[in-house]
């Protein structure tokens, strides 16, 4: 059954996307559609003393201005506001709930008008007076107020003593700034009101069922009252894991006015939602003279809001990567007057591994060891935190294949020793690591006797290629050409799926397709076996496969009955099966993906302009379902890593507690001219333990390690170690 799985199959939704046939949340039409425009708070902390909407209401075409004072009812218990991925600790933000201001950019009113321009204009006429309270938004200024989260990784040995006695010790702070996702698609919701009061919510989200449950809780609705749909998502990167505030506002508007309404945030307003939190990553490494580690400590100090404790695993990654008898990890939070951070591609790892891998490079320099050699000396075959072997770990092979493709052996280790004309050349490397997670997902397959199948599931495709891999796996499992498979996703009425995140959806949806397809096969076999003289009479299910539009004996495909014949004979037009796949619990293995990233930078010796001229990323992530979308995914991660290393930073003026570059002209991400050669290598990693297909997922691993590889290359080129990201040229200039 391998016609499609593992091949570079083109996106099945590609045509719809490039022709504009694919509709996004802010594009669905509705009769009498109204438009909402958000009025935001311009202070970071305090309360609304007066909110005057009278002038705005007088504008022709304005129907209403919703505020905390006049809105329809909203749930008053935190539990109703806690979505599937909300932090455990804290009280989720409730838009238009009351007069308190918790962060700059907080929505405080929704102007509803017949058209968007009118709403936007009237929004400028809403007068707000505030009672300002004291506030703080500066992590570094508030560092001394950091409080430890209660879930640090288990300490092992005595790291403090081991560090004190280490032959070589390296300790430093690495500072990762706040970053925003900036998906191409704006945050948007179209709430369609139908005559009997039910709502269809087209929303930009990574999880329609998460939003569905959340809205039912917040608005005290029955599951049948609301349906959430999100067939296409123009990038999300974690920003759509939790329900975005505009979905609440659109629903409020529809309920208040009993009309359909669309709320699309501006690019600037999107900076009032989640982001990768700024962190100060303090890493200490102690090593013996032979390059083996004695001790690792890693402490992260991260931003969160005053009202929720958002924390991710920044610090534990050394447990997966490097053998060390002693280790200690801590994650601390500083509560500031800002909105709650959220997941952003490889949350925790992108920042934490960046620091760890820069520190490893500094240790290699101190030990006069090649950076790859140091990592091989410390290579850990077990996850030390649980002391478990891996389902598979081909990281060694990643180092070898990556180094080979890059030409690493030709590296002169001395900083500033390699050059190309006016440019200093630097070669750096780093390791990447992420988890291989999997979640329960259900899939429904409807097979019709003409050999077509519809496969449906509530999972989202956030641009990663879920439509395509579901079609591939279904085509193989059902023995049909991929053209005969249609995939429906991201509708809350479809079979169960969690949010699309954490790199778990490929493995989770693929195995759900397999179990549902097996149910279909069972039924087809039942029908086929009943045909008089059937070559499959009495055959066991395990001995059969669906192939070439038939059900056949697995070891002798000539003993087969076509699906069409079986169904016709049985008088069945349609076989519909839905099945939830649960992965068996395996407490005996650790599950991770890995990568080795090699980067070349060229730095103009006088002007300090930095170019990332080559990146080789060798990835071990189990079996790759689709080498084309998989490669794209890793390339995207590498490009993002270039941005994280050199460009990305949300800049805040702490005197005002305001973000000052809330737009994509001034918030820099790489443009084409910043991107040169990117070579993606998928290392063979057969995995017999993790799941039937041996799949691990590729969503996040592509970015992890890239910023560190580039920072290390910048050091190698220039002899300057920049520990405060992004590495802009002014930091090199002296």
């Amino acid at each position, binding site marked *: 059954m391998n016609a499609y799985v593992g091949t570079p199959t083109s996106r099945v939704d590609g045509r719809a996307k490039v022709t504009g046939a694919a509709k996004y949340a802010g594009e669905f039409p509705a009769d009498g559609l109204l438009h909402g425009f958000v009025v935001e708070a*311009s202070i970071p902390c305090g309360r609304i003393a007066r909110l005057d909407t009278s002038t705005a209401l007088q504008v022709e075409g304005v129907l209403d201005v919703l505020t905390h004072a006049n809105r329809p009812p909203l749930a008053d218990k935190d539990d109703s506001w806690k979505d599937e991925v909300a932090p455990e600790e804290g009280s989720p933000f409730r838009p238009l709930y009351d007069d308190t201001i918790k962060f700059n950019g907080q929505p405080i009113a929704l102007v509803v008008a017949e058209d968007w*321009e009118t709403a*936007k*204009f009237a929004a*400028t006429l809403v007068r707000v007076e505030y009672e300002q309270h004291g506030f703080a938004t500066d992590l570094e200024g508030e560092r001394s107020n950091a409080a430890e989260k209660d879930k640090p990784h288990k300490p092992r040995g005595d790291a403090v003593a081991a560090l004190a006695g280490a032959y070589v010790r390296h300790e430093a702070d690495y500072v990762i700034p706040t970053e925003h996702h900036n998906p191409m698609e704006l945050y948007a919701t179209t709430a369609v009101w139908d005559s009997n009061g039910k709502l269809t919510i087209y929303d930009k989200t990574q999880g329609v069922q998460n939003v569905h449950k959340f809205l039912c809780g917040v608005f005290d609705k029955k599951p049948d009252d609301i349906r959430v749909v999100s067939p296409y998502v123009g990038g999300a990167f974690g920003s759509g894991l939790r329900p975005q505030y505009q979905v609440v506002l659109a629903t409020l508007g529809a309920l208040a006015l009993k009309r359909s309404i669309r709320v699309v945030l*501006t690019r*600037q307003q999107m900076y009032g939602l989640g982001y990768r939190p700024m962190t100060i990553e303090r890493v200490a490494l102690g090593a013996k003279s032979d390059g083996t580690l004695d001790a690792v400590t890693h402490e992260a100090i991260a931003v969160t809001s005053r009202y929720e404790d958002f924390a991710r695993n920044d610090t534990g990654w050394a447990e997966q990567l490097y053998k060390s008898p002693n280790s200690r990890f801590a994650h601390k939070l500083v509560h500031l007057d800002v909105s709650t951070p959220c997941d952003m591609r490889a949350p925790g790892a992108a920042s934490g591994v960046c620091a760890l891998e820069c520190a490893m490079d500094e240790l290699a320099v101190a030990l006069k060891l090649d950076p790859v050699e140091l990592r091989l000396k410390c290579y850990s075959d077990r996850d030390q935190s649980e002391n478990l072997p891996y389902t598979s770990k081909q990281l060694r092979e990643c180092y070898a294949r990556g180094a080979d493709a890059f030409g690493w052996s030709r590296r002169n280790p001395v900083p500033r020793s390699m050059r190309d004309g*006016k*440019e200093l050349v630097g070669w750096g490397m780093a390791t990447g690591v992420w988890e291989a997670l999997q979640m329960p997902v259900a899939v429904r397959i409807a097979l019709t006797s003409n050999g077509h199948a519809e496969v449906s599931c509530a999972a989202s495709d956030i641009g990663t290629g879920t439509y395509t891999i579901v079609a591939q796996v279904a085509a193989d499992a059902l023995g049909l050409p991929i053209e005969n498979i249609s995939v429906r996703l991201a509708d809350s009425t479809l079979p169960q799926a969690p949010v699309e995140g954490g790199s778990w959806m490929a493995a989770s949806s693929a195995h759900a397709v397999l179990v549902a397809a097996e149910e279909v096969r069972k039924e087809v076999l039942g029908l086929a076996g009943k045909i008089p003289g059937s070559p499959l009479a009495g055959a066991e299910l395990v001995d059969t496969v669906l192939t070439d539009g038939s059900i056949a004996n697995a070891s002798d495909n000539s003993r087969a009955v076509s699906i069409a014949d079986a169904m016709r004979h049985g008088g069945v037009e349609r076989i519909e099966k839905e099945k939830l796949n649960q992965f068996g619990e395996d407490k005996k293995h650790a599950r991770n993906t890995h990568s080795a990233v090699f980067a070349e930078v*060229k730095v*103009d010796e*006088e*002007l*300090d*302009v930095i*170019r990332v001229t080559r990146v080789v990323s060798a990835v071990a992530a189990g079996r790759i379902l689709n080498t084309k979308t998989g490669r794209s995914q890793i390339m995207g991660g590498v490009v993002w890593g270039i941005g994280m290393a*050199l*460009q990305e930073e949300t*800049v805040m*003026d702490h*005197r*005002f507690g*305001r973000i*000052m*570059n809330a737009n994509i*002209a*001034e918030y*820099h991400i*790489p*443009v*084409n*001219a*910043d991107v*040169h050669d990117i070579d993606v290598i998928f290392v063979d990693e057969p995995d017999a333990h993790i799941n039937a297909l041996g799949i691990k997922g590729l969503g996040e691993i592509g970015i992890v390690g890239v910023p560190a590889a580039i920072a290390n290359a910048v050091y190698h080129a220039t002899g300057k170690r920049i520990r405060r990201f992004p590495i*802009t*040229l*002014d930091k090199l*200039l*002296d």
Partner: protein
Amino acid sequence: MNNFQYARANDVADAIRLLAADPGAKLIAGGTNLIDLMKENVERPTRLIDISRLPLRKVEGTADGSLRIGALVPNSDLAYHPLIEQRYPLLASAILAGASAQLRNMASVGGNLMQRTRCAYFYDTATPCNKRHPGSGCSAMDGLNRNHAILGTSAACIATNPSDMSVALAALDALVHIAGPSGERTIALTDFHRVPGDKPHVDTNLGTGEIITAIELPPPGFAQNYSYLKIRDRMSYAFALVSVAAALELDGNAISGARVALGGVAHKPWRSLEAEAALRGQAATPDHFSHAADLLLQGATARSHNGFKVELARRAIVRTLTQAANATPQSQAHKKIA
């Protein structure tokens, strides 16, 4: 965005009449800067006067050997115009260093000259800014000023002019043709933009009710030895941290004429006649370039985050003059610095 009236001007006289009739009116050409500022409520015109259809789209030679460029010639058309490519490649290069292809297709010559600063506080109506709201204070002075001016600043404003095109025009001694209620006049481009002084809300010396009709480029065009080098935070599609337009006339290795203008460092394209005079008669060597850089940067002062610009500008001046002297101008298409 505020509610506004819209009127289309049929000819230049019509535009001037419409402007005079409504003190809150603004001209709109490509709209790539004005609309952005309106969306941020920074500009709140009562009326937009659409000049995009005025017949000011020609690039033509004049009897005295100059080139006259209509104010509505799109930036892209200008950059790829054969007469510009042949005679004033410095201008073509500077234009192509700016914005993106899509923006350059929309942007007009007049609009480019009039584009406003990118100072973040100017854009954010929740913060004080003397340029946007005279007398409210300058938030950048002790705030985020990494990309602010180091030359010609005042106690009221340290903003920069973001235009690339203007830097080349300054180096080429361009003239700005203006029409207004009291007739036509011409200003040297170097006198067109102002230093902020105590009136940072006034960007240029264009008078009330006046409209730019054309730019004039006199000879020489420095088509042999020129370069435009723009240093920014990514290789394309970012405003300059520092940019340099350099143009030389060489006699063997001796400099017989020199022009150097800086972008990203002041409220206007920055030139120093003293620095240019110091280059004349000298050999085209790094030492002389370096001396010129010192003269250009005389009086440079930095605030908390933009000190690096002084050294960066110094080095960029030397590099750009070297590129010009070697006739190896910076390419705006290659992903690297020459």
